[in-house]
């Protein structure tokens, strides 16, 4: 069976999940009447099919499972958002369309991703400027002490989501060029491998940028994600574990300093260490997160059955619509969506979601292994690592594995920037895999394939 047919077949479980999920929520919440609910499902599946046809036409050799796995996450996200508030699901479905368009545009415009290597400093600068824009007066909009958003009139945008791709492209390109020097020209002093400082400089710049992000925009989650991807790439490029250890040590030193310098970060750590006695704002969120998961048990309360919306007299008076106000669990549609999944679907539901991320990571790293040149390997590994680490950072925060920081759960959480950025990331991975899996002897070009880029 061809790769594309396998992709099409793999979309069938996605279709079943969407229809089944929506129907289940529909049964529980009979108030959410209607044709409308089923239309979301159909709408979503039509977009998936369109993307599939586009990939069939443009990237015939691309990995067949990557897109269905991401679609599966998006389907889980849509069902959960429909369960939280049906208007969120409608918005998210529209965002998904925009994301699909961007995926297509990425593939059409970039044509050959190797070209990105040439613009690496431009891309890196763009990524860092985007981040700093969150502090520009007039654009900035701090949330819980962190500067995550820039406001452009009615639109709010999280630049960190796009920055992560820019920085991974830069690192992949830079390490591809310098990896020999970093790995080979190292000296051993007192049992420690010391890389040549000349080549290590730009990497210290990345560390500095991460620390600056911590300090300047107080975004711990993105910072951990960036730095984690950096270490992953450094390790893949040099195969030297000592660099990773040194990098982690540097990061912890920086983080401990920041903990004392920035109250917002110190609070996050205090809450993580002891959410029951911490007086810091936000302790309630992690408490509610754990209570919601405790209600889930092994199999969960059932889709739409666990307590989320505060009923009648328990509901506070507020102007904002649910779930921004009146939810027992704060931010159930963004930061805490994993807790809602566990509450409704239990440990099995949560483990299922984690398993999908593990499968995406497996496909992404398989692409890296199969890729034929160093830049492709590093880019695929970096994009996969940053994607997987984003999931680890937010789920880890929700389950109190690490301090809770506000990043989105890729493809599942509500949010435009996240879906769009991850669609671009997916587009790049698909392009790399198309290159990696293309047969060495090009097949007889038939009419369909003639349109392919050289």
């Amino acid at each position, binding site marked *: 069976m061809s790769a594309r047919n396998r992709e099409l077949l793999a979309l069938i479980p996605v279709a079943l999940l969407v229809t089944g999920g929506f129907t289940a929520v529909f049964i529980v919440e009979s108030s959410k009447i209607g044709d409308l609910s089923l239309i979301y499902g159909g709408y979503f599946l039509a977009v998936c099919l369109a993307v599939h046809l586009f990939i069939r036409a443009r990237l015939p050799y691309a990995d067949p499972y990557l897109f269905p796995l991401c679609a599966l996450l998006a389907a889980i996200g849509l069902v959960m958002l429909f369960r939280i508030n049906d208007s969120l699901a409608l918005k998210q479905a529209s965002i998904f369309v925009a994301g699909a368009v961007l995926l297509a545009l990425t593939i059409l415009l970039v044509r050959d991703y190797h070209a990105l290597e040439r613009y690496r400093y431009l891309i890196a600068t763009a990524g860092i400027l985007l981040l700093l824009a969150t502090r520009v007066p007039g654009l900035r909009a701090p949330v819980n002490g962190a500067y995550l958003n820039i406001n452009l009139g009615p639109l709010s945008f999280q630049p960190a989501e796009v920055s992560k791709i820019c920085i991974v492209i830069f690192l992949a390109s830079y390490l591809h060029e310098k990896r020999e020097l970093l790995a080979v020209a190292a000296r051993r002093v007192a049992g420690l491998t010391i890389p040549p400082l000349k080549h290590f400089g730009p990497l210290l710049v990345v560390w500095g940028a991460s620390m600056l992000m911590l300090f300047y925009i107080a975004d711990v989650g993105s910072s951990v994600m960036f730095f984690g991807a950096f270490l992953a790439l450094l390790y893949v490029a040099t195969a030297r574990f000592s660099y990773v250890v040194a990098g982690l040590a540097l990061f912890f030193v920086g983080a401990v300093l920041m903990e004392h310098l920035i109250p917002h970060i110190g609070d996050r750590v205090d809450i993580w260490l002891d959410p029951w006695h911490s007086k810091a704002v936000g302790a309630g969120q992690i408490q509610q997160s754990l209570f919601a998961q405790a209600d889930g048990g092994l199999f969960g309360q059932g889709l739409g059955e666990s307590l989320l919306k505060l009923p009648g007299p328990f509901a506070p008076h507020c102007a904002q619509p649910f779930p921004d106000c009146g939810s027992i669990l704060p931010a159930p549609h963004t930061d805490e969506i994993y807790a809602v999944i566990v509450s409704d679907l239990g440990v099995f539901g949560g483990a299922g979601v984690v398993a999908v*991320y593990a499968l995406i990571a497996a496909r992404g790293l398989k692409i890296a292994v199969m890729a034929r040149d160093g830049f492709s390997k590093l880019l695929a590994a970096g994009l996969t690592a940053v994607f*997987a680490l984003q999931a680890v950072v937010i789920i880890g925060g929700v389950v109190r*594995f690490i301090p809770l920081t506000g990043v989105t759960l890729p493809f599942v959480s509500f949010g435009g920037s996240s879906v769009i950025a991850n669609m671009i990331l997916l587009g790049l991975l698909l392009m790399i895999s198309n290159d990696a899996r293309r047969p060495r002897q090009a097949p007889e070009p038939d009419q369909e394939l003639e349109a392919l880029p050289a």
Partner: protein
Amino acid sequence: MNAPIVRLYGLLLLLFAALVGFTSYWAVFDSTNLKDNPENRRPLIVEQTVKRGTIKTADGVTVAQSFPQGGGKHPVYVRRYSQGSLFGNPVGYSFVQVGQTGIERSENAELAGERNEFTSILDQLRGVPQEGDNVTLTVDAGAQQVATQALQQAIASTPGAAGSGGAVVALDPSTGAVKAMASVPGYDPNSVKDSNVFKQLNKKSSGAPLLNRATQSVYPPGSTMKVVTAAAALDSGQFTPDSVLSGRSPQTIGGFPLSNAGGEQFGDIDMRTALTHSVNTYFGQVGEQLGTDTMVKYMKRFGFYADPELDYPDDQMAPSGPYNSGGHLVTSGFDVGRVAIGQGGAEGQDLATPLQMAEVAATVANGGKLMRPTFVEQVTDPDGRVTHKLSPKVASTAISPGTAAELTSMMTDVVNEGTAVGLSVDGVTFAGKTGTAEIGDPANGINQPWFIAFAPAADPQVAVAATIERCQGCFGAEVAGPVATQVMESLLK
């Protein structure tokens, strides 16, 4: 570069495994702790969103009902008690602010509609919102009304009783069904959700209205205890109704002189005469001759030494029997002669709940078999299907039918020609036993009047125990007697 990529995948898998591990910890292994965490309002809120079942009496009067509050698609339900203070005890209350007591608590699983997994999945598929089961009590609202008013009137009109409390319990001797249970002073369960009112009701000065005196308070049962002593004497075969002992007063019992009421002198009398006239010295000797072990054995058979087997919260019931000065039940070392007449001393003061003494009367009435007492006639689910129906269960066989018949005959004499002469139940022949326990220094003349009875004597339908906490220079028959007979009359109609 491929080897480090594979190792990177290994690391990511470890991280993902840690996420699943942490999720399992909170959702399964630590979930009980999290659910019990005082900060966790979820269980409370969820319970309020379920329409709690209705509580009705055997004669169809609605006692407790839930109404939606707040409106909208997700209402919460609040309890309303349409009979006010009439059922404050034993039904209790159920409010978010103050918790649950009484039958509201003991029947919570049914009232809250806690179902097994399978039914709840079916209900979800059918789109049925969770709803509690309805509980029909064995209690008769009319009898409850009579019981409460009779108690209040007795307390108001008896010298030295004002400001004290009292209780009356009526049982169906053949099923154990509680037909009436009143405790005075009472309280309106609708009022306790106001935390100020709740605090006030818990103050000593308020007379402890939240206390269910019928099940929670232990009092010296006085001469009503002689029914238990006589039952032990006859059933053990050591005595017959014709066994003769001296009835002179005082006599040395337990090393100290014991007198009859008012110092009245009797000659050599049989047990029938002794019970009819409630001769202390006779039963003091019987107690001493039976000995501690036999008395304890029969007390246990009648239900003493343990909480009644009633479907009621454990902390709202107290066991009966000889209590030492430390407040512990003792099975030896007490003055058995005085316990035999429902009194005692620091080493073992006989104390009993009104419910226990009603069970004594019911056991004799039921041919010697003590039935397990119960409040619940039936439980029906929201669709009207009966999910539970009262099925009478024997709690213990205390005495033989022959002994019960002899005791019934002797207790009928008490009413016809003894200490309870003058009491009547609508022309029906009934059996009873008076009690007048001394409280504190006998010189003060403060007594606790009791009356236990069952009617009709030939075919008992109802057994009752009534008591008032204190009165001045009074007797059981004149104060507690009319309370018991009025309740029996209301239940025999």
